[in-house]
């Protein structure tokens, strides 16, 4: 642990669902960890958190940091800094970088960048296939043992070959590691840029069908069941996908899943006007899908909320819709969107929301985060749940400004982010 800080966070509503705590109390931090209350309060820096919510730092298990290769879009440094502003203290970095994290060498390269420049905790995801080409498996065992990868995904692509995916799942089970699926059947989504339906028709754009997502999820969970492997479905966007996952779970599959804030807050109508910041894969869907996603968060079918933070430069977004890159940024807005859409609309209460954004992701990844028990890493955030703000392009810390939420009014501001026991971010007020 770098340095020693003694901090007391006083009078905040401490919401720590991992330990069943939700009450006003003080949090003591010492030497990078949550500490027991001390009688000697003199050396402590005191933060008054009256009226605020004190919770574990967010664990975002789906973030594209773009390093190595596309440092013009984002870096480990800028991405983690952006995360801190959004209350994110732990990130799982997705491996579709250049080069992809498909070898121990590349994993260690990234690990080194993390060690030298990360402002928050970064864990590394490896790829399932070499170069994400879907043809040859990576050495999962070595990537885990020597490369330090804690999960595997070809995110951005799905592994089309059933046999290969089967092999990957068997290997993952053997290595006791997690496969994260970007479930998309490209033969059914080919060339599509928005949800197939009224919006694609009125905008004159090629549509991405829902089948392309839920049929591939069906395949992924079935193969996982057969291999008795754990599988995590990324960015669930439509109601059939939720149904497929719920059914699979009922049949005993070890499947977890996540959704992103845009899928429980925006519909395909946000695309009208051709705003390329709303061009996302999977695409924004219909009203019924947003309702189904919210319902699934409430019922527990969806375990986690992850941003799928996908930074892109202006050159790749301020162009014709067809040609623009897919993706929206998310680190700096995810908590506020969740507060605005889920807490405010009474879809989830605070303990549930915190679970979805820290406890559950940590559990799924098998990392020791998301708890404010004594002795745990002092990754703590202090949130003003009532403050409203308007999302502005120029306010983003991320190198990229492609947010689907620009111009929207959100509720919820992170006032302090404490990472590893030190104040890593403080809002300007």
């Amino acid at each position, binding site marked *: 642990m770098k340095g020693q800080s003694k901090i007391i966070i006083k009078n905040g509503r401490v919401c720590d669902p991992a330990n069943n705590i939700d009450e006003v109390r003080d949090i003591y931090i010492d030497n990078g960890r949550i500490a027991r209350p001390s009688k000697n309060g003199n050396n402590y820096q005191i933060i008054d958190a009256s009226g605020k919510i004190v919770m574990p730092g967010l664990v975002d298990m789906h973030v594209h940091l773009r390093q190595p290769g596309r440092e013009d879009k984002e870096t480990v440094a800028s991405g983690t800094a952006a995360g801190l502003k959004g209350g994110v203290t732990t990130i799982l970095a997705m491996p579709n970088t250049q080069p992809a994290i498909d070898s121990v060498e590349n994993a260690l390269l990234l690990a080194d960048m993390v060690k030298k420049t990360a402002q928050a905790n970064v864990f590394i995801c490896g790829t399932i296939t070499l170069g994400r080409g879907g043809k040859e498996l990576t050495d999962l065992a070595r990537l885990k043992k020597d490369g330090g990868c804690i999960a595997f995904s070809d995110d951005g692509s799905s592994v089309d070959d059933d046999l290969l995916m089967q092999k990957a799942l068997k290997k993952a089970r053997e290595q006791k590691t997690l496969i994260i699926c970007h479930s998309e059947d490209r033969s059914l989504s080919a060339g599509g840029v928005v949800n197939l339906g009224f919006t694609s*028709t*009125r*905008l*004159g*754009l090629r549509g991405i069908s829902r089948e392309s997502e839920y049929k591939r999820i069906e395949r992924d969970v079935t193969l996982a069941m057969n291999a008795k492997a754990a599988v995590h479905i990324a960015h669930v966007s439509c109601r059939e996908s939720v149904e497929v996952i719920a059914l699979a779970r009922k049949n005993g599959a070890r499947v977890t899943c996540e959704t992103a804030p845009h899928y429980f807050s925006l519909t395909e109508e946000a695309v009208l006007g051709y705003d390329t910041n709303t061009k996302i894969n999977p695409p924004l869907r219909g009203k019924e899908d947003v309702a189904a996603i919210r319902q699934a968060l409430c019922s527990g079918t969806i375990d986690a909320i992850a941003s799928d933070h996908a930074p892109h430069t202006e050159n790749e977004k301020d162009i*014709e819709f*067809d*040609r623009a890159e897919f993706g929206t940024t998310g680190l700096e807005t995810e908590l506020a969107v969740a507060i605005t859409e889920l807490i405010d609309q009474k879809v989830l209460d605070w303990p549930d929301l915190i679970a979805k954004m820290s406890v559950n992701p940590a559990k799924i990844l098998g990392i020791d985060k998301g708890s404010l028990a004594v002795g745990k890493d002092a990754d703590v955030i202090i949130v003003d749940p009532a403050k409203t703000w308007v999302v502005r392009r120029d306010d983003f810390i991320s190198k990229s400004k492609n947010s689907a939420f620009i111009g929207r009014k959100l509720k919820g501001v992170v006032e302090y982010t404490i990472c590893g026991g030190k104040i890593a971010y403080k809002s300007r007020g």
Partner: protein
Amino acid sequence: MTWTRKDLLGLEELTKDEIELILSTVESFKEVSTREIKKVPALRGKTVVNLFYEPSTRTRVSFEVAAKRLSADVINIAVQESSVRKGETLIDTGRNIEALKADVIVVRHGASGAPALLAQHVGLNVVNAGDGWHEHPTQALLDMFTLKEKLGRIEGLKVVIVGDIAHSRVARSNIWGLTKLGAKVCVCAPSMLIPPAIEMMGASTSNNIDEALKGADAVNVLRMQFERDTEAAFPEKLDYFKNFGITRERLNNAKKDIIVMHPGPINRGIEISSDIADGKNSVILGQVTNGIAVRMAVLFLLSQARDGVVERREA
């Protein structure tokens, strides 16, 4: 009412009043093309740039003739010979044209939404001359003007649009325009060529042209495109002609005076028979003539709005 929009990007966002304003403005400009000296000074000193990313003869020439009859200077940018080949972006192209102090950009582009993107970044008037599968507003306006001219009204008409609806900007613009003015629109095509949820745009759908033509006041025949790589539902030209082609025999089941329209260019023997294309029901060439007046009206109204001075032209 007065026209206030900087751009004409589509008919979806226009109100009924705005469409009627354009159509009433067309009347006065139609008269100009019947004079010996086909010119009015309305756009004298203005520069209209035709920026066509997709090939076109008809629309481009029509806009050029329209602009020239308004006394504007016209520049045609052949995109294939321009810096677009050197990778210049659409926005940069637009900004450069703006820096040359042009007044209007008429843009045709293969990507839906391209005119909207351009319009956001330049202060010039932007006219959509067709973007991808999205809209072709001046085509629909001239289609509607022609219908009104022949049948006296739009409201209450039953109009059938037949062809590759899924990929047709002409179809979409026509659906918006016609339904806003109270017509009933039916789109007819093999099911693979009808896009999802088109009913939500206000059109009914049919896979049977004979059924659809019953009681129709007009049929707008779209060109069947066989050069498209992946989208063709009818690989055999003959099959389409047999099942959906507009022929004398087919029209025998329709109203005797049914109006036959086509945005052109026509493929004789594929979507329409020669005798129908050239026959008494056809208004195809009349559409072309009206296209000039429609584009004159559009250029005029947009230009006036930008100047901040708008006069109501009485028909």
